[in-house]
């Protein structure tokens, strides 16, 4: 489109693949040995190993939730997936030490460049483990911890064990159980009381291998009055076979803390992206999810906030774009568990061609609470008559001392609108892109600058492929 900076980039930015060898490989399929292997190479404590074993059992016992979710879940063949592939468990602290093809991968994705430009720390995960992990020295001096999950559990159990698996219990759903059994990678972050991390911390998740499953696990704890912004990006090459990505992300914002978690999900169209994300907000704390889903074959993700302390705030701002062959099943969960808690959900979905978007929301406000507020807005944009959108908002408000506001809209980019724009000299793609940008603009304005530029560019790239 015309109004964003012209960055010369290929359309499928993430669609490339390097051949590489893995020193560590748990083989194909999921059984007790898979878990023993992962635990062993990571030299985990027995409690972590037990946690995994328990999780595997729960995963096996839980049915696939096709009674409410997409039947496409039946096309995941757990016995054909590789659950752990890595070149080693210890990430490098400098890019020079990162293996050549891995370094090339992240350079092509622009990660070291962004790190220099505006990031406080970066973790770059290649298949199962982080290859690179580094944070600015001044943050370490302030006591900020930013490491991978393996290192976090090993070196700082007194900090992380307390909350690990507490915001999202193993059995929350089938995929949180799967992640709990085979998790590897992801970030463990601790920000000490009162420390405000000004620049974002970034994690980049890259799938390189075919028939692979990536199961990162992230836990972020912002101690009292602390503030942190975390951004994650993800890409994978386009394979004929399906790839599985199933993460668990737990956030803990203690009294007066603020956590902002930003996702740009741009998986290739063969990836099943089944992610559980939830934050806990204590007294006067704030958890904000900014969640953008542009890629994948099927995404199921409903970021949530449990507002446990008085005055806590929760927010989910999300954009989903579903193309032919894609289903973005997204939403938000707001659990009000204290007085004067406030939540805000703004969801915008764009369905193109045969693409499908679904919004599912839950807002729970029990009767005994006072002065709670929720605002929910769901807007859907359809880009041709075959597109499909569904909205399933479930608001369970009991009690009269709370307020809830809900708005939903469905609109279409009409042929007349496109003709009008083309009559002014815009190509069909530019016209679509401008319309879509118009639809998401007021929401994107709420996002941090670097991120909104990136997102607009991704939308433009998506629209280029949508015409014809």
């Amino acid at each position, binding site marked *: 489109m*015309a109004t964003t900076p012209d960055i010369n980039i290929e359309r499928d930015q993430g669609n490339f693949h390097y051949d590489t060898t893995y020193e560590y490989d748990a083989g194909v399929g999921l059984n007790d040995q898979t878990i023993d292997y992962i635990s062993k190479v990571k030299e985990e404590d027995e409690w972590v190993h037990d946690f995994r074993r328990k999780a595997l059992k729960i995963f096996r016992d839980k049915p696939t939730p096709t009674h409410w979710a997409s039947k496409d879940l039946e096309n995941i063949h757990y016995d054909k997936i590789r659950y752990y592939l890595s070149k080693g468990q210890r990430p490098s602290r400098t890019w020079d030490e990162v293996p050549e093809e891995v370094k090339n991968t992240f350079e092509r994705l622009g990660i070291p460049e962004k790190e220099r430009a505006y990031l406080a720390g970066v973790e770059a995960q290649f298949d199962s483990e982080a290859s690179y992990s580094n944070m600015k020295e001044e943050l370490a001096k302030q006591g900020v911890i930013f490491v991978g999950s393996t290192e976090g559990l090993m070196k700082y159990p007194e900090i992380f064990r307390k909350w690990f698996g507490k915001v999202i219990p193993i059995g929350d759903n089938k995929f949180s159980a799967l992640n709990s059994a085979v998790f590897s990678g992801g970030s463990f972050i601790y920000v000490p009381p009162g420390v405000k991390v000004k620049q974002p911390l970034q994690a980049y998740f890259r799938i390189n291998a075919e028939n692979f499953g990536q199961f990162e696990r992230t836990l972020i704890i912002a101690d009292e009055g602390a503030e942190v912004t975390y951004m994650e990006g993800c890409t994978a090459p386009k394979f004929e076979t399906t790839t599985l990505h199933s993460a668990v992300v737990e956030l803990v914002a203690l009294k007066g803390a603020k956590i902002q978690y930003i996702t740009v999900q741009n998986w290739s169209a063969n990836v099943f992206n089944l992610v559980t994300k939830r934050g806990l907000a204590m007294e006067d704390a704030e958890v904000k999810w900014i969640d953008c889903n542009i890629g994948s074959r099927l995404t199921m993700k409903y970021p949530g906030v449990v507002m446990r302390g008085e005055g806590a705030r929760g927010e989910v701002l999300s954009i989903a774009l579903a193309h032919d062959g894609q289903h973005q099943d997204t939403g938000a969960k707001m659990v009000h568990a204290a007085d004067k808690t406030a939540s805000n959900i703004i969801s915008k979905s764009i369905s193109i061609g045969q693409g499908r978007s679904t919004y599912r929301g839950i807002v729970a406000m029990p009767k005994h609470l006072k002065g709670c507020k929720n605002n929910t807005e769901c807007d859907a944009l359809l880009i041709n008559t075959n597109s499909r959108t569904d909205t399933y908002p479930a608001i369970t408000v009991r009690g009269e001392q709370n307020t809830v506001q809900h708005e939903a809209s469905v609109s279409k980019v009409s042929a007349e609108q496109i003709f009008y724009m083309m009559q002014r*000299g815009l190509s069909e793609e530019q016209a679509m892109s401008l319309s879509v940008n118009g639809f998401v603009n007021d929401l994107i304005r709420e996002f941090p600058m670097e991120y909104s530029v990136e997102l607009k560019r991704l939308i433009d790239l998506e629209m280029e492929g949508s015409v014809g």
Partner: protein
Amino acid sequence: MNTLEIKNLNVTIDGQRILKDFSLTLPKGEVHALMGPNGTGKSTLAKALSGHEDYEIESGEALLDGEDIIGMEPDEIARAGLFMAFQYPSEIPGVTIANFIRAALTARLNEGETFRAPDFYKELYARMDELKIDRKFTSRFVNEGFSGGEKKRCEILQMAMLKPRYAIMDETDSGLDIDALKIVAEGVNKMRGPDLGILIITHYQRLLNYIVPDKVHVMADGAIVRSGGPELALELEEKGYESVTAEPAGASS
């Protein structure tokens, strides 16, 4: 060469023929008026020339400075220099007027040219002032919530900014009160000149008091039945379409 030359155009919609051997030559630098009762195919002509996919062009030519635009995509036709001010302009939610015009101009840049924002805003504000459009409108979304008159002025604003070689104004006068009509007419008169040919589609004579055309064509049932000077518009106003179209085509030109 310096003409928009429409030759024997036959256009159907849903299998029904609307334009029948329609011919018209609009030289650059002139203003022609195309008049006729509702349903004769005036808008059809505008949309078919603009490349709208619903309008099937069965035969005929439309040469824009010698280049046949029939079969080209709407955006190619637009960039070739044809502008249409819509009878019913579309709304574009979320896209501001400034961004929209900017995108349209950027789409016209040649290789190596860059968009110059300060010059753009300077010109945009000047044109808005002339058309008495509040500068706040730059951040309004295109046509969303506009009154009929605001929409039409916004069409003329776009025309002024995009500088076409030929412009077709489809009933720009409808829905305008007399003050707005004068403002629009003034704006159009400013654009008149050797580099622009204008076809004004209207079925009232009113607008032509303010934009005096070089020629007037009367259309009936898909073709031009009479052409003449500005006085033909007055005759129409006086006697009505029926008696004027009853006379043989070309009788007074």
